[in-house]
């Protein structure tokens, strides 16, 4: 799993343009997080794809887009997995390494959950 982080214009249409690059190269986006960031008028997108080759292709293509200011592949030390699970006791938010979070989900067998990856 490779994690790509980018700073993009915070406007309508930008997500579609970025996703279009993945569509055209038939790359599935495994997880995606988008949010406000430290740069005014920009947003940070963190997404994951399965392998390195796909990630490299995506980074090159994303680098051409005028809505993308900066794009990079981030290593594991800068990643943080995040999950929201529903259990009999209610919702629980999990934060940790990708493995840690995956293990807890595996053990808890929640009825519903979402598991994604963030990075800085």
């Amino acid at each position, binding site marked *: 799993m490779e994690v790509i982080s980018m700073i993009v214009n915070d406007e309508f249409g930008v997500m579609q343009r970025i996703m*279009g690059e993945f569509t055209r190269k038939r790359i599935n986006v495994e997880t995606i997080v988008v949010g406000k960031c430290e740069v005014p008028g920009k947003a940070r997108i963190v997404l994951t794809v399965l392998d390195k080759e796909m990630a490299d292709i995506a980074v*090159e293509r994303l680098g051409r887009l005028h809505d993308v200011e900066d794009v990079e592949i981030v290593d594991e030390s800068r990643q943080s997995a995040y999950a929201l699970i529903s259990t009999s006791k209610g919702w629980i938010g999990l934060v940790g390494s990708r493995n840690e979070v995956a293990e807890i989900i595996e053990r808890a067998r929640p009825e519903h959950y979402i598991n994604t990856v963030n990075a800085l």
Partner: protein
Amino acid sequence: MDVLRSENVELMFGIPGAATLPLYDELLDSGIRHILVRHEQGAAHMADGYARIKRSPGICIATSGAGATNLVTGVATAYLDSSPVIAITGQVPTNVMGSDGFQEADIFSLMMPITKHNFRVTDPSTLATDLRSAFRISMSGRFGPVHIDIPKDVLTRENGVQPPPTSVDATRPGPRSDEALVAAKMLMAAERPLIMLGGGAKWSRAGTEALAIAEKLAAPIVTTLMGKGAVPETHPLVLGLVGMHGRAAANYALDNCDVLLAVGARFSDRTVGEAGSCNMKVIHVDIDRTELGKNICPTLGIVADAKAALSAINDLIDLKIHSSMWSKSSGDMMGRCDCDIDVCEDPISPRKVIFELNRILPQDAIIVTEVGQCQMWAAHFLEIRDQRTFVTSGGLGTMGFGLPAAIGAKFAAPDRKVIDIAGDGSFMMVCQELATASKENIPVAVVLMNNTRLGMIKQHQRIFYGNRLTAQDLSGVDMVKLAEAFGAEGIRVDDYRDLVPALETALESEGPVLVDIQINREEDIFPLTLRTAAGSTVYRGSCPYNGGC
């Protein structure tokens, strides 16, 4: 309008509609000429043809909804061939957007994958900046189309915000010096070097630099369809078109070279066949980083402008080879394959049409083509020499490109003769633009190689589908009457002896002329070369020289 004027826009091609009327009202007093076309696809191709000759942005404009969607084919054509077209579309007012208003289409989304970038202007105060950016983006790095979608209320509320100053970045990035050195060393160490020029070399005007390297190394040059004419095809080292309908000598050189310097070429399936069929060492120069490794993995990839890169590499080559076994063998092959296309028989051979055009076209003619067999006859046999320019829809293979692109080219170069080498299938997709040419008095000559067929379809059904012909018969149209109905002159040619006078009349005319040449309906375009990793299969046709050409 201030932005358009300051970007030296002289004319734009389009059709008005309710959503663009405010802009047209302003256009009246702007001093910018507007060419009213008959279909928006024509407007986009005209802007494209204009851009390819001027090497600066061509502008097309359409209204919201269907007007805008009609531009899509033309914009996609420009995208695939890296042409700086700026497409302006009207849009329903912002308060109606998203409600499926009359003539509303989400053209912003539709244009996204076929443009370098596009804008939907929702704030009147950013209109000038966005327009300015469109010009900059279309002409920076790898050229390409940019689209701007402008809602009607933004046009009317446009409040005269002063546009930012022009900011086209004319610098063309060169190669890193270490990369240029490695490239030069690889080329000097090669036994069988070959240069392949693509559309990027042509856009960058890198022909002189390519020839300089070729002459130092006695390296032959082949060109892709989009690269045709980047170097004059009369030069002894230029082997001509490579690829599926390329010349045997050029394909031989590509199959047998040991180091390939590919410049502004993207190794498309029509050029090199299946992926993995390039086993030589490849130096790949392209201004677009994403082209390196996209279709083949180069030994050395250089992200740079073609002209700058070739110039730098040339400076580092301190070698002078006058002749080698390699250059001799490919040159010999070229000579052997230079078969006679002066076919004097009826029905008229399309090769005879090209033969006569080769002889009588001026040295600076602009030759535009439609798409199909006509295009391949022209690409294979026509000699682009001296200052001649070859313009074709290579990437998208857009039928209907030729006539409007020729009209656009003529606007860009009024002093040069412009012809459209057409087939009847492709021509009929845009034939209404003859009316535009008549109305504007644009002397383009449509050289129609009329076989009353979708000829390339017929050829493929014949060769690959056991001669089971279907959906290829287009007969029953009187092209001369059609031309006359649109106010153009029509000349029908059934006998090869009438060919030259008809073509000369067309070239000398002061208005549009259609020369309806009834060609041999059975003739196909050969050779047809299919390259695979295992080797090439060549369908040779009936050439007495074993299908060389």
